């Protein structure tokens, strides 16, 4: 099959889908031309632990599943730990992805990093959303 059972499970029942109104950091990656856009919202407490995370993803099955899995993997973790999340950890947790879909896991990793970036920017007085619309896989 195209996707593993684990991917299909996260596609059908995405964890942490939605928005956080009063997020501490918001990051967005991907672009419309490439077909996938992911937006991550994080809530961070005073100890730099990620207490809540949500995502909104426009994209294929793998994009939705990697977003979902990535949020699961960082929820409750410290920012330091979250920064260590690699795309291959996401792929592994999903029991694999087809080669053409690996870029989705890269997007998920980058989305989290963009959200954390945004958290630090906001702490230093910035606001808005950190947007990285380079695409991990395509030359568009």
């Amino acid at each position, binding site marked *: 099959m195209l*996707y593993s059972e684990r991917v*299909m499970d996260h*596609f*059908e029942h995405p964890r942490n889908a939605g928005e956080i109104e009063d997020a501490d950091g918001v990051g967005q990656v991907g672009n*419309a*031309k*490439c*077909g*996938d856009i992911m937006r991550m919202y994080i809530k961070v407490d005073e100890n730099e632990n990620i207490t809540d995370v949500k995502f909104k993803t*426009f*994209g*294929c*099955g793998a*994009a*939705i599943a990697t977003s979902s899995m990535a949020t699961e993997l960082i929820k409750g973790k410290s920012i330091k730990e979250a920064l260590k999340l690699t795309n291959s950890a996401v792929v592994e947790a999903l029991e694999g992805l*087809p080669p*053409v879909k690996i*870029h989705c896991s890269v997007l998920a990793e980058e989305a989290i990093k963009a959200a954390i970036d945004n958290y630090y920017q906001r702490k230093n007085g910035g606001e808005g959303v950190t947007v990285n619309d380079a695409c991990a*896989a*395509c030359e568009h």
Partner: protein
Amino acid sequence: MSKRRIYMDHAATTYVKPAVLEAMLPYFTENFGNPSSIHTTGQLARSAVDRAREQVAAAINALPQEIFFTGGGSESDNTALKGIAEAYAKKGNHIITTNIEHHAILHTCEWLEKNRGISVTYLDVDDKGRVTAEQVEAAIRPETILVSIMFANNEIGTIEPIAEIGAVCRKHGVLFHTDAVQAVGAVPVDVVAMNIDLLSMSAHKFYGPKGIGALYVKKGVRVPTFIHGGAQERGKRAGTENLPGIIGMGKAIELAVANMEESSKRVAALRDRLLKGILETIPDSRVNGDTEHRLPNNLNMCFRYIEGEALLLRLDLAGIEGSSGSACTSGSLDPSHVLLAIGLRPWFAAPNLGRRDDGRGRGLRACDPARNSENIARNVANI
């Protein structure tokens, strides 16, 4: 598969009709001879191949000796373009096509540009996916050797003005090839009336088997040998003939053409009911392509803010099988070049739910347009 599934992806491939399979079966086991062998078993195979060639020829108003069996539509397309580019190199190096052709044409053109010094004009289509004969005529140059324009598009189902384009080509003495893979068996095709010099088809699009196709080459048009070796296919394509495949293609095309008018009407009516249901139930949905010049079995829609693959997966979970873009590129990241060409932004997903059926298979009978449109609506809402 526990649930009853509804297959709406006949543009990608069809199953083999029972009558077609039945015609093929003896050629696997009893009449399995090599048509080139002198003995009785071989000669029986030879006669069967001759008969199938006549069936294929008759379906498009060609002569049997103008039909060359190939391994499918892509091989036919490649053979036509590379062959004409080689055989007519002395005459010129310019080919005219459109920007919504199947990749079997587009990638071959790109290869010819890179490797064979061919210059290619890619005509733009309008927002319904159509080119005009005038556009073709304006693009013809003294060094133009071939116009290759698809009969009907495999994603949006738009039918091109083939007879008009054929007339323009004839007028200017330019060869005309059409990729009729989606058209043969679905709409009337007449190579004489339409002035077609070369035509590609593929059996698995009209309830024949996969792995067999044909290229029609008008008598007098030169094409070089595509596969060297034995003298099969009058020396153009060597290799022991795909005997059951050829028999199946002959039978399938005969059946498709015989039932065409009636089955087209029935399918188009069902398609239109489904379309109506979807438009009424799903906000921000619209139909792509041409509603007038359209394959009767094709439906291609876009749903705003919905990504194609995600919708297809969800529909698949609900037991409805469709496609977005062409099957050949399902694995790729790029948005459909056809939808881009008709001006759609890529976040308008466009699952192709068109289906082609003769009422005897599972798709059509199992398919209640009202229920399906609701089902699709529910799944669109879920994403």
